[in-house]
């Protein structure tokens, strides 16, 4: 469960990115975070990942207030929250397999487990054939699948995706969203920020809409609601 309570974030340059944000996301939900550029979507995700600390308010992940985490505890929060970016953030000098295995090495998983787990995740994202390719040999959609595989390989309970389809064409975007939805059906909470009106409108999932740092709408089975 994720809970934002009265969260505001003022950056160093005095820009108030979000103010008085309140929402609760239950385990297993699929949530779209929509709003125009600069509305504060990325800021909310960064706050959840503890990349930023709110100026006021509390953020609970599984009953624990993550704004109070010690520096040492932050990696363990992040191991429970998989993250996917618009620009994929894959390591160019590692193969697809190595990029995914790396996420397990970091948590000191047994090599035996890594050898079993990576092929499983690769097949889940449909990239078993590309295990030994390097990122630059893949299409954008395939690269995003690799980054999704990396995000879920150590079975986090939450998956955060910040405009994951921002660099992809509509058809490929649909494939990525379907993959996220598949992962969600297996029990992972998914939060995805996006500009893709068509996708949001037809998915009929919960939509939290932001404008100028405020929540203007929070609907179950919602729609995008802006002229995209």
């Amino acid at each position, binding site marked *: 469960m994720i809970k934002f309570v009265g969260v505001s974030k003022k950056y160093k340059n005095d820009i108030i990115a979000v103010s008085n944000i309140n929402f609760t996301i239950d385990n297993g939900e699929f949530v779209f975070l929509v709003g125009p550029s600069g509305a504060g979507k990325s800021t909310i995700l960064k706050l959840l990942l503890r990349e930023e600390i709110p100026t006021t308010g509390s953020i609970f992940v599984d009953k624990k207030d993550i704004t109070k985490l010690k520096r*040492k505890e932050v*990696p363990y929060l992040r*191991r429970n929250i998989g*993250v996917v970016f618009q620009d994929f*953030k894959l390591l160019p000098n590692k193969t697809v397999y190595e990029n995914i295995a*790396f996420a397990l090495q*970091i948590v*000191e998983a047994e090599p035996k487990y890594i050898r079993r787990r990576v092929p499983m995740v690769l097949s889940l994202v449909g990239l078993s054939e590309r295990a030994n390719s390097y990122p630059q040999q893949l299409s954008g959609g395939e690269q995003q699948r690799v980054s999704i595989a990396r*995000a879920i390989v*150590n079975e986090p309970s939450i998956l955060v995706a910040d405009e994951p389809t921002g660099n992809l064409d509509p058809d490929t975007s649909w494939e990525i969203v379907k993959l996220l939805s598949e992962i969600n059906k297996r029990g992972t909470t998914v939060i995805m920020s996006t500009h893709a009106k068509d996708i949001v409108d037809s998915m009929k999932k919960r939509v939290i809409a932001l404008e100028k740092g405020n929540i203007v709408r929070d609907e179950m089975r919602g729609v995008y609601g802006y002229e995209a």
Partner: protein
Amino acid sequence: MKLNTAAYYIREGLTNVKRNRAMTVASITSVTAALLILGLFLIIILNVDSIANQVESQLELKAFINDNYDATKVAKVGEEIKAISGVKSITFESKKDALNSFKKQLGDKSYLVNGLENDNPMPQSFIVKVTDANMMKQVSEEIKKIDGVTQVSYGQDVVDKLLGIIKIIRIVGLFVILILFIISVVIISNTIKLGVFARRREINIMKYIGATDWFIRWPFLVEGIVLGLVGSVLAIAILGFIYGYASDLVNNKLIIFTLLSAGVVIKQSLVYFLAMGSLIGAIGSGISIKRFLNV
């Protein structure tokens, strides 16, 4: 720390070492240079120490006797010296003995004293062995009071001088070593900084997928320590080779005392060198990890 994680740190550390060849070479060279100078001072200190010991351990002083004293008078002086407490034994060295022993010291240059036999300038003396090094000064004062003794010399002067030299070498050495130490630390720290910079994307990703601070730091620490250790091993090898050659050369020419063998010197300084090398590396990378890694 798990074994495969440790293996990962070492592998990544070595990858860093290979990544930036120019800086790696610069780092290793500076550590080697610093440790070579350190080694030079260490060798001098160890040798001067050993020479001081050699001189001191002889526990001998020499009482020079008036040139005009004949055998009976000399024998009487000998009796008086023997009577002094702290004197273990005495040996008489005649003018002729003294000249012969000087000839021996001159070796193949002994022709220089040819023809001096009839007008021997060497003094006659008693070589006095003392029971205890601490008695030297006291015994020598007593002997000086005896009629017919012109002068008393003993190794203490030399030992004192050597100890004074060691002191100066220590101070100068410490200062030079400190400066070289700092230079090496700065160069290694710059090398690591470039490594951090080259890997900043990777580090950023590692943070997102939940790597601990130390997981990110270790490879850089390994890199620094490897640079320091390689530098120190090189320094030992170079030093051992050159000193081995030089000490043989010197020992063949000197008779009064001997220089320590290269083996002994390396054995005594090996641990210092390896410790200094890894310390330089660890401090150098530690600085960069703290200032530039920000994890």
